[in-house]
């Protein structure tokens, strides 16, 4: 990723307009992640790289940068995610796409 034509994912997300809610629209049942899931597909599939394991090995999601594609929800076969669209005025607002 040293090439100058590529950008860090955070910088890419920084180009987008987000209107932030106080409430998360993705909630993880971390107990399901811990006890049932070994594949952790969410870590791979999210195009915004929002999923992370914290220091204690607990799954977290930085939902603020969510592009609302739903890929994590579809790929989570353990059904650990409660995934909704952000409320009315919130979430990503594409200006071009």
């Amino acid at each position: 990723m040293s090439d100058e034509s590529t950008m860090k994912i955070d910088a890419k997300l920084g180009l987008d307009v987000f209107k932030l809610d106080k409430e998360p629209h993705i909630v993880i049942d971390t107990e399901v992640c811990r006890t049932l899931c070994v594949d952790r597909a969410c870590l791979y599939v999210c195009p915004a790289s929002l999923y992370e394991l914290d220091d204690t090995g607990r799954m977290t999601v930085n939902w603020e940068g969510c592009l609302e594609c739903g890929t994590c929800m579809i790929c989570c076969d353990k059904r650990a995610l409660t995934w909704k669209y952000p409320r009315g005025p919130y979430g990503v607002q594409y200006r071009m796409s």
Partner: protein
Amino acid sequence: MEKVECIVVGGGLAGLSAAYGLADAGVEVMVLERGDYSGAKNVTGGRLYASPIRSFYPELWEEAPFERAVARELVTMLGDGAQTTIEVASDRFTADPPQSYTVLRARFDQWLAEKVGEKGGMVVPNMKVDALLREEGRIIGIRAGEDEIGADVVIVAEGVLRLLSSEAGLAAEPVDRDHALGFKEVIELPPGVIEDRWHLNPGEGAAQLFLGNVTDGMLGGGFLYTNKESISLGVVVGMKAMRERAEKAKPQDASESYQLLDRFKALPQIRPLVAGGTVAEYSAHAIPEGGIAAVPKLAGDGYLMAGDAAGLALNALITVRGMDFAIASGYYAAEAVKAAKARADFSAAGLAGYEASLRGSFVLKDLQTASQIPAFMENPRLFTHYPRAVSRLLEQIYTVGPGPTPGLFKTAWGGIRRDFMNTGTVKDAWSARRI
């Protein structure tokens, strides 16, 4: 409970197309859009095939804010260090009228929403629908926050994830097998640079698809569409293939899907195409790719399903379509609602004309024609072996080494026998007869 004749859930192309037809016929219609404006949550690759939909609302397409009329079609097969591009240009692609255009959704959908407004339809932004209201098996309206609004009929154009319709039991939840993830950068470049790089006349555009060294062998590929003052460069990758990859990944493998685009963009074949450009936006969206087998029930008592929510999209490898299907399904949904209103019958029987129209039109006919494509595309050789083999064969034909060079036929035949005449490829050719 407040009540209108028709509620449209989702102000994308399917919903707006339906609302335009209804408002034009004097039906009271309210479009509920969760974004700040129509298009705020939408992503296309993207190209809209206009030929299939031109006869619907012909007055609209003359003034539509298209980006460029696609004059050049390119498919690039990326091998290991070698690539092959097939470029097709035809006067007929851009003959008056052109068959397809590149588009950007924020501009395009906002324009269509304005047109709906001019016809007297109401488009309400920032209005996220939380549930479809169901009573005795019939959809009777929607709930948005604290508000409930009733309707004679609800057109469900909520998009690919169909959170509301699956919750209400109208359609199955989306599954990985039937969907792909698409993500892209919009990269700004001056119009003159775009026209030079893709050999275009002013106003004309190019559509370029990439197979091979893009998706790490997973189902999918790269795409590039030229807009007026930008290009859309992105990757599509099958969700089932991604999940299987995650299953097989070793713990130390920290790669993530988003890096596919970075690696694609950094390829020596792609770098000159994006050089000097400024990334202006990064976006991602799920894409329905399950074909006709994944299309849910299209109508029932008090509701119709349209656009991506109804799985109406078609990746036929070379042609990738969805927006024309969305606009067509919206058009036919409006026709069906008008007919139902005339008979004052919004039951499944009263709305049955919708599915009949879609079956009689290109929408379900083309999906039926392509019914074997989703299974065909699960073959990983399409994304690994063939792009490499084609490029290797042509590279050898064009190679002059230090020693004697074998004859053209011998080189070609040797390459064909090596890469295209074994049990796997013969099997692939046999299954390709049905696509």
